[in-house]
Every structure is written in C-alpha cells, then in structure tokens.
C-alpha cells in the first residue's frame, strides 16, 4: 500500500505550487506599485520568469556545463582524469557496438517513420475512414515504450520448430512453411526487430506532422498536374513531395534525435545483450553498474554532440517552414 504521508505530500505539492505562485505574483504586483517606472519595467518581467528560471537553471543549464566538467574527472568525480574517459569512447569495443547500433537506429527508425508517416498521411487524405485509420497509427505514441516493448515481446515470441508457435510473427512464418526465427536473439534480426518496435511507436508522430502539413498545402498545383496528365505517383513525387519538404525535414530531424536517445525498448527487450546495446543503455550501465560517473558523463557529451548537428538542421528547416 501507498503510505498516507506520500498521498498527503503529493496533495500538498499540487496545491502549494500554484498557491506560492499567486502569493509571489501578488507581492510582485505590490512592488510594481511602489517602484519607479523605469526600474519596474526592467525588473518585473524577471520576477515573473524567476519561478521557471530557477528549476530550469538547476535541472538543465547547470547540469549541462557540469556534465562536460565531470567527463574530465575520474569515476568518483574526485581526481582529474584528463581525456581518459574520451580515450575509452574511442578505444572500447562496447562503445563501437553501441555506436554502430545507434547508426542503424538513426537510418532505419527515421526511414521507417517517414515512409509510414507519408504513406498514411497521403493515403488517408482520400478515404472516408481517415480518422479511424490515423487513430490506429497514432495510438502507440500515447502508450509507454515499456508497454510497447512487452507487446512486441509477445509478437516476437520464439519456440523451437515442431512446437506450436505462440508468437504472432513466428506463427505466420511457420504457416507459410518457413522456419521460426529467434527474433531478439539472432544477431541478424535483433537490431531490426527492436527498431521495428521503435517505428511502430513513433510513426504516429510523423503521421500527425506530415498530415497537418499536407492539409495546409493549396490543392491547385496537385490538381493542375493531374489535369496535365500526371499519374497519382508522378503528381505526388514531383508536386506534393517537394512542397512537403520542410515538414519532412523537421520530422526526420526530430525522429533522428529520438533514435540517439533510444533507451526504454532496448532496456526492456534485450537489455543490450546479443549485440543490441545502444549509447543510452551503455550510459545507464556506466552510471549504475560500473558507477563510473566520468565515463557516463563522457557518453552523455558524445550523445549530445551527435544530436547537435541534427538539431541545427531542424532549427534551420523550422525557420524555412515559417513556423
């Protein structure tokens, strides 16, 4: 059972934060009335921002700088380690495996989500059951990755040939006369199997953005192309797709960043075994199993550096899309 004190604490926090905010803003309001006008215009906005700037500073801004600093210290953050932790990144095979897998995640997750998102956005645009079809694809974006991982562990379930298969995929395979596959153990399929779960859980996000972008396009150009005799594929390829380009770039960059941060699916389904490790899981293990804060920090810096160029690309594409 949950202790009563915990419930009371949660209630207190839920009430206290808005109450404190109101009190704070009331005090700021009184201050506003007595302060000289010039000082007032300079100071008051910052007093309104302060309740947000303090947690953002403590939990985001300061840790950002501190992680870089810790990545240059030893495991217990006590002594100076120079570039030792970065040497580990360059020389360790476990880092190389994780990097290779993240690259696979990057390519396959982004590609899979874009293809599915475009396909669903374009095809549902023309049918009467659009809402239902889109809801089916978007629903998994709302559920926890952990639950998605459990769902797919059952889908990928393997039993030796001869026994009735309990996993849906292997049942389909054996019904078609093929041998069942140990999806999550076999190193030829396991990374793709994990990324497939990622696509299943993320494609809805791509669908929502691309579908909204598609609806915002003026229909004239597409119609003109069709009247000029272009087939549906040609019209899509040469007219619609170029117009969707900014939305496609934004979607691709956001999915690509999530590929670097992939953690939950791998943690629950294989825990990085059978050569399926990714950077985020490696960092988690360095933090809790090896308790090496220096290496964990260096991995975090690597992750951020890898994501940074994609984010710059995203910021520029967003600027072009005029949002």
């Amino acid at each position, binding site marked *: *059972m*949950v202790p009563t004190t915990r*419930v009371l604490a*949660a209630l207190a*926090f839920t009430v206290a*934060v808005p109450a404190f*905010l109101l009190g704070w803003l009331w005090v*700021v*309001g009184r201050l*506003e009335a007595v302060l000289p006008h010039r000082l007032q215009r300079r100071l008051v906005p910052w007093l*309104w*921002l302060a309740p*947000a700037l303090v*947690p*953002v500073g*403590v*939990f*985001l801004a*300061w*840790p*950002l700088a501190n*992680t870089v600093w*810790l990545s240059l210290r030893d495991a217990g953050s006590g002594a100076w380690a120079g570039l030792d932790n970065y040497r580990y990144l360059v020389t360790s095979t476990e880092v190389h495996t994780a990097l290779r897998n993240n690259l696979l995640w990057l390519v396959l997750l982004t590609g899979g989500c874009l293809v599915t998102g475009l*396909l669903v956005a374009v095809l549902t645009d*023309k*049918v009467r*059951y659009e809402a239902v079809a889109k809801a*089916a*694809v*978007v*629903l998994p974006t*709302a*559920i*926890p*990755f*952990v639950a998605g991982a*459990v*769902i797919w562990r*059952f*889908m990928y379930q393997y039993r030796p040939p001869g026994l009735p298969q*309990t996993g*849906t995929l292997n049942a389909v395979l054996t019904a078609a006369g093929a041998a069942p596959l140990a999806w999550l153990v076999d190193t030829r399929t396991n990374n793709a199997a994990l990324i497939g779960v990622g696509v*299943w859980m993320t494609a809805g*996000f791509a669908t*929502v953005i691309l579908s909204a972008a598609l609806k915002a396009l003026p229909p004239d150009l597409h119609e003109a192309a*069709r009247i000029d005799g272009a087939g*549906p594929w040609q019209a899509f390829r040469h007219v619609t797709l170029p117009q969707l380009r900014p*939305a496609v770039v934004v*979607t691709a960059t*956001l999915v690509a960043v999530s590929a670097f*941060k992939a953690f*939950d699916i791998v943690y*629950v389904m294989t825990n990085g075994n059978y050569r399926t490790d990714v950077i985020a899981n490696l*960092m988690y293990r360095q*933090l809790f199993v090896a308790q090496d804060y220096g290496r964990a920090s260096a*991995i975090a810096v690597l992750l*951020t550096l890898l*994501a940074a160029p994609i984010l710059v690309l*995203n*910021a520029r594409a967003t600027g072009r899309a005029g949002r």
Partner: protein
Amino acid sequence: MTQLLTRPAPPVTAAPAVPKRARPRRLPTHLTLLLVCGVWTVPVLGLLVSSFRPAYEISTTGWWRAGEGRLTTDNYRDVLATGGFGTALANSLLITVPAVVAMVAIGSVAAFALARMSFAGRRAVTVAMIALLALPVQMTLVPVLRLYNAAGLTGTFAGIWLVHLGFGLPFAIYLLRTFFAGLPEEVFEAAALDGASTLTTFLRVAVPVSGPAIASVAIFQFIWVWNDLLIALIFLGGDPGVAPLTVAVSNLVSATTGQGWQLLTAAAFVAMAVPMVIFFALQRYFVRGLLAGSGK
C-alpha cells in the same frame, strides 16, 4: 469499408488519362491502409486477448486460439493485488499529477512574461528555452544524481517532481508563449484601460481564453511523465515501494524468464490504460501537443 473495398472497378478504356481515371487505383489504397492498420492494431489486440488467458494456455498456444480455451480475469487480479501493481498505479498518479500541475502553473506565468512584456533579454531567454527543449535528457543526469545523492533526494517523490518540472518547463513555456503571443492586442489594451494589474490581466484575461492550449500542454506532459522510465529508474532507485508503473513493468520483465508471462500481459495493460483513455477522450489536444513538438 467493405462496401468501398468491393466497389467494382470501372471498365478500363483506351481513352487518354483524365483525373476520373483515379478510380481503379482506390483498391490498392484501401489494401495498403488495411495492411498498415492491421500491423498497428493486431499487436495491441493480441496482448489484450492474452491478458484474459490462463498461464498454461498463454505459454502453449497463440492468442488467436483463445476461442478454444478458457478466459479469465485472474491475471488482472493477481497483478493488482499480489504483484504490487496497485501500489505502482498509485505511485504513477502521485508522481504525474503534482509534476504536471507545477509545470503548467509555472510555465504559463513565465510564458506570459515572455509573450506580453517587453524587456531587455527577452529574446535571449526565448532562444535559450528553445535550445534547452531539444537537449538530450542524458546530458543532465549525472550532475543531478550527484546533487540528489548529496541532498538525500534520491528515492523521494519531491525529488522526481522537481526533475520532471525542470525537464518539462521549456516545452510548456514554448507552447504557451506561442499561444499568448498570438492573442489579439485589443483585449490587453482594454484591460490596461480598466486599470487592471498585470496579475489580474493574466488571471482574468489571458488564462480563461487559453483553455485549449493549457489543456494540450497538460495532457502532453501528463503522458510524457506517465510514460517515463529512465528518469524514474535513475532518481527513484531500486525500491519497488516507490516504483511507478513503467519501472514495475520493466522489473517484471527482467524477473520473468518463462514463468509469470501471464502477469506481464495484464501489467502492460494496466500501464497503458490511463494514456489510452486520455488518447481516446482527448485526441485533439494530444495531437496538438505532438504538432507543437515539431514546431520548435
């Protein structure tokens, strides 16, 4: 839908292509969508069916053969009563609700300042928020964990509320700032003419018309915090008494090697139930949150 699928294709003529010719192409469209929807719904359906099957049947036959066997609610009873999932469900709520309320309250105040007050540094703060929005959470974990270890905040709910608050604020501020900035100037001028204070203008003018935007932020953050595994694993530690649903499910996965699979099916559904209800009831707001996530 069946009616659409079985509509007879018009006879193919040798006439040159005109837009009407699009008709025969509708069958592939329906088939493709049917396939995609199947791939996206069958896994959930399979788990749902499995969660009502007894242990022996789950481990010997597939869910599609459930009709031949027995159906039971034992899995749910076991997982909620003895599996500790009742506690985990309560923990998830106790972690999520306070964190989201704090995020929305503080976020809307800051967003209002950024959107409706002009001051030196406004642009810099806005840009910094947008940049932090995209920061990988991993980059902040080690220092915050060290801080928490020193302050005795690991394993406490206060600690995890504050972490979620810090991580979630840039998104709340970003989305609400865009919304507040888009409100018509006249309303605020009218309030100023009436001699309303800034606080009154915020509470009586800005907040009441921002219901949908605030709802989007709240729902999106709710689902984000509810679904989080990494932050809970790191800052709540190994104590199952404080674990939210996501941690409880992942512990159950690592604890089960063949045995207890039937519990996993029900456990996953308990973890999914709240986000699924929110999704179906408040789809519009959820989708708006997803869209805002793209508009950085």
